[in-house]
Structures are given as structure tokens and as C-alpha cells.
């Protein structure tokens, strides 16, 4: 449960180090994750692919946000 909450916050693109982020981002992340999860349930996937998909989403979004953030910092 805790992990899922942290996952939604991550997918929303909030920084875990603090400093920026918003509740809107977290809610978008929550909606996104639960939509994907629900769709996968409706398509008859088991828990394995679902956990894998959520994990992939988190890792992917962390990487994308980290790269975007680093890019904007190096421009400054």
C-alpha cells in the first residue's frame, strides 16, 4: 500500500528530495496508474504483468524526469 502511494507520487513527477512538486501532479499520477492497472485487469492480465507494468512506469518516469530536470539545470 505504502509502496503504491509512493509510486503514484513518483509517476506524477514530484521530487523526493523536496523543493518542488504539487498535489495536482500526484493526483494525475494516481489516476494514470489506476487507469492502467484497471485496464490490465479488464484485459485479463494476472498480478505478475500488472506489478511489472507499474514498476516499469515508475522506473521510466523517474528516468525521464531526472533527465529533463538535469537538462534544464545545465541550460541555466
Amino acid at each position, binding site marked *: 500500500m505504502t*509502496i503504491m502511494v*509512493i509510486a503514484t507520487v*513518483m509517476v506524477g513527477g514530484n521530487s523526493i528530495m523536496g523543493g518542488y512538486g504539487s498535489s495536482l501532479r500526484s493526483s494525475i499520477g494516481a489516476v494514470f496508474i489506476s487507469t492502467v492497472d484497471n485496464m490490465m485487469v479488464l484485459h485479463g492480465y494476472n498480478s505478475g504483468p500488472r506489478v*511489472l507494468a507499474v*514498476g516499469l512506469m*515508475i522506473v521510466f518516469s*523517474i528516468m525521464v524526469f*531526472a533527465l529533463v530536470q538535469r537538462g534544464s539545470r545545465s541550460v541555466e
Partner: protein
Amino acid sequence: MFNRFKNWISDNPDLSFAILLSICVYAYFGLTNELFPTHRTGFAIMERFAVLGLVGLALTLCIIAGEIDLSIGSNAALAAVITVRFTDSLGAPSALLIALLVSTSIGAIQGYFIAYLRVRAIVLTVGTLMLLRGVALFAAEEKTVMLTDFRVPDFISTKMLWYFSPASLLVILMFIIVGLFMGYTRFGREIYAIGGARKEAIAAGISLKRPMIIVFAISGLCAGLGGGIIGLRSGTAQALGLQYVLLAGTVAAFIGGVSIMGGKGGVIGAAIGTLTVNFLNTGLVFNVTPAFMVQLYLGILLIVVIMFQTGSRVFDENQRRKQILADADNLAKQLTKRKQFLKERPG
């Protein structure tokens, strides 16, 4: 001799406190229960040490480097599933080797990405926690995998030298190797450097990538070995199992005297911390204590350790501040003396 002992204690207050604590816990249970100091209990404690010690070691290294590896439980579960699935077809040693290769390379890849993306490890490993759990579910096909040949579990928990089994001997060997690596090689010292003072270390020319990859590779290796040992010992593996090891290992690492700020602590501390936790757990089971009381005592132990660490750090800082003030005073006195001397000098 006595002076050297005293110096060692004042150099390593956290480690010596951890050792004192473990001796106290052992002595308490040894005195209150006559079955506790026997070698049979020692064997049981060492068996628990085999898995928890590895996780404690991995987390100690991560905390020394100023990071934390949350994916350790998932990595261990994946390794357990791989080991158990391949043991029937390939034999236990090669199955374990495959699992170790997989978990170590997963760790190294994590370390690489943490250093490359410059994110905190806690961010990325939350993701890999879920990801690896999913991979483990895939690998196990969402079932509990089981061995068919139970000679391997028999072998891995044979008693040797009263206290040890092949599993715990392997773990002790691992501890010695990692301890030597951390203490006496350049790579090990780099890990301490990026944990204690990361900016300074990078300014001094240490690249972040190499120590980070090494730390997470060792962490993955330990997780894989722990998972493999659990899988082989029980003969079964579940993809959703081993979630408790992360918290248990963190508690062991902190009781062993690793500092949350990074850069402090060591392999001996990890071993001592795990042993303390195991003494406490086993001793309370011997005294027929309910499970929630075990958690309570563990919490009390942790708070005592953290209070000691905070206290000793505050004491250290106060001493240092006093020293600096005294030095400044001395300097000021010398200067005024010199001024007076120059004034009074004729001509």
C-alpha cells in the same frame, strides 16, 4: 596494552557500544535460561544469521555510501525463485551461480543509473522494488516453486563444527571478503568517501559511477546469496516472499552502529548488529514471549542505539568547539602579549 584498548574505544565509540550491547543481550539470556548458551541454540542463531546477516551487510554498505537499496527484498525473492527453478535441471551450484549473476548485474545496473541520472537511490529503488517483484512473479509463473530433490536442503543445513552449516560458513566467508575489500582497497575507501563527504570526494576527483556501481553490485550479490540460501534451505520459493528482509536488515545495520549520515560504520558492525538482533529474537522465543513484545524490545534496542549515537556526536562536537575556543583564546593572549612587548620595547 590497556591504553591501546582505551584509544580503540574512543576511536570507534559506535562499534564498541554495539559490541557491548550484544554482549549484554547474550549475557542476559544466557543467565536467565540455561538452554540458551548451548551449541544447539548457537547453531540456530547462526542459521538465522546466514540470511539476515547478508541483508544487513548489503544495507550497511548502502548506508555507508549515503544511499539505501529498497529493492533488496525483491532482488532476493527473484534470486530464490531462479535458484529453486533451475536446481532440478542444472544442479544446485550452477543454479545458485545463475541467480547470483542475475542479482549482481541487476544491482550493478541500478548503481550505474543512480550515478548517471544523479538521482537519490531511494527514488530509483522504489521503482525497481516493484519492477523486480513483477519479474519474480513472471519467473515463478505466479506459483510457489518447489524442489523435487530434497538432498540439497539436507546438505545445506548439515551441522559442522557444532555451530556452523555450509550456508553460514559461506556467509562468514563473504563477510571476510567484503570486510577486507572495504578496509584495504582503494575502491572500498572510495565508497566511504562518497558517503561521508560526497561533494568533497567528487571535487577530489572520485567519479561517482564506480563506487556506486560497486556498492549496488555487492548489495545485489548479498541479496541474491541470501535469497538463494533461503530458497535452497526451505526447498520452496515464492515471488511475493521475503518482503520483511528490508526492514529487518535495516534494523540490524543501525544496531551495528552505521550512521544514517553515511561514511561511518563497517562490516564488523553489520555482523555484530545482526547477531544482537538474532540473540534478542531467539532469546525471547526461549522465554516464550509473544511476537508483538519482540517487536517492542527490538524498537527499544534501536532507540537506545540511536540515542547513544546522537549523544556521542553532540558530545564530540561540544569537545571540538571547546577546543577551538580555547585555541582562539590562547592565540589572542599571545597576540596581546606580543603587542605589549613591542610597545614597551625602547626605541
